């Protein structure tokens, strides 16, 4: 049966339940006896679910007329008393509602991993007293948010992704909102790590935003997870590795290249908005993995 039909039927039941159930019918219902017409029975059950006073009266009817049910109730209550006393209770104070509305699913493990990587980079930077290598914090900073960003909009990570996509708020707005939740944690951490390792935010903040935006824009084409992975891989292979091998800070992260990063961000922003509809539909597969 179609869900819409069920809902329509339920709606039809509900408004008609304003009249209370008569004592006679209630008693017959309580004793489990036959003799309530099918549609009336239906109405009684629907009504009882909504009407506290009729439930109360049903309780009285049961007490009067159905000793068998009463002994059942007493038995269950006695068993419950011991079970309840020793049963563990569920704690679902996961996150305050406000926070959980902003965060993408499965964010915490990803953030923890990011923080761990940054901590390792800081540790290596601090251990490297003689400054043989370029600052690893600086090198990692541009791609640091990508691990979190990859989880912002992905069917593989979020079991409820299809539902989210179908929701009215789905789209670029929600993607940006969740990205912001990632950045709110990652950027301050980067700031602290950079301060410890002597990498000024002026040098990594724009690249960091460019990579975040770039992942979102590229994600419109090939899916966010692939996009974030591709960018992180490209940066690692193209910049981090050569810099570490050559032991010098890459040109891309020198203050001189900041205007180019700013220009790139502007281009990315335009691209992101132009193709924003990509985030309102379901993506079955990427264009290269069909």
């Amino acid at each position: 049966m179609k869900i819409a039909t069920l809902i329509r039927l339920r709606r039809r039941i509900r408004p008609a339940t304003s009249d209370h159930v008569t004592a006679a019918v209630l008693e017959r219902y309580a004793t489990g006896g036959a003799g309530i017409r099918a549609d009336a029975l239906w109405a009684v059950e629907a009504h009882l679910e909504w009407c506290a006073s009729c439930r109360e009266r049903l309780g009285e009817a049961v007490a009067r007329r159905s000793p068998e049910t009463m002994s059942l109730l007493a038995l269950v209550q006695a068993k419950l008393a011991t079970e309840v006393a020793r049963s563990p209770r569920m704690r679902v104070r996961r996150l305050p509602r406000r926070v959980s509305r902003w965060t993408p699913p499965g964010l915490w493990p990803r953030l923890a991993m990011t923080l761990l990587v940054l901590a390792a980079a800081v540790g290596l930077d601090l251990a490297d007293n003689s400054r043989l290598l370029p600052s690893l914090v600086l090198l990692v900073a541009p791609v640091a948010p990508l691990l979190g960003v990859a989880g912002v909009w992905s069917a593989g990570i979020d079991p409820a992704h299809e539902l989210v996509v179908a929701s009215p708020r789905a789209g670029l707005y929600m993607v940006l909102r969740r990205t912001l939740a990632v950045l709110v944690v990652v950027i301050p951490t980067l700031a602290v790590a950079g301060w410890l390792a002597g990498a000024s935010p002026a040098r990594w903040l724009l690249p960091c935003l460019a990579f975040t935006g770039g992942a979102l824009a590229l994600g419109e084409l090939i899916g966010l997870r692939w996009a974030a992975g591709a960018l992180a891989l490209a940066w690692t292979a193209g910049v981090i590795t050569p810099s570490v091998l050559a032991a010098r800070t890459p040109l891309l992260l020198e203050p001189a290249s900041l205007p180019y990063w700013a220009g790139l961000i502007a281009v990315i922003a335009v691209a992101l908005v132009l193709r924003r509809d990509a985030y309102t539909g379901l993506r079955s597969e990427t264009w290269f993995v069909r």
Partner: protein
Amino acid sequence: MGAVTSMDEENLVRRIADGDRGAFDELYRRTSPWLAVRLRRRCADVEIVAEVMQETYLAVWRAAAAFAGASVGGSAVGWVWTIAARRLVDALRRRAREAQLPLAALPALAAPAAEDEVLDAVLGDAMGTALRRLSPDLRQVLQAMVLDGLTVRETAVLLGVPEGTVKTRARRARIALREALS
């Protein structure tokens, strides 16, 4: 601490979520007769009903914090029923595995009674007539799916018929109702 006796069920569940035993006992006092009667009309075996009730209230006690209903307009009593209906189906499934006896007792067939005229106004006339005209088989399926909110598979377990039969009956019931209501 307000008196639990003057609270509505949603507030009681919220208090239970905070570990209030008094609220739990009050919820049990208020809803258990209703739940017992409703379950017994769906399952003749008192033992199963007792087991289901115990599991249901234990689940209420443990998982009250997960009840989000009040903020989305759901009723706590409906939530309790949802748990109970699922537990009933689970219990029947378990029994069916353990033994061969199908325990899902069919609800007593309705014999029209004089007093029922009072209830004529309760359901819309067309709806009431349509329901009454449905054959008991179809009505049971409809009742399990619409009133008790079960899925096709759960309905099949509850009524002890194959899933395909449930689907066919639901379809026939829907067609019959649509004809009657149009």
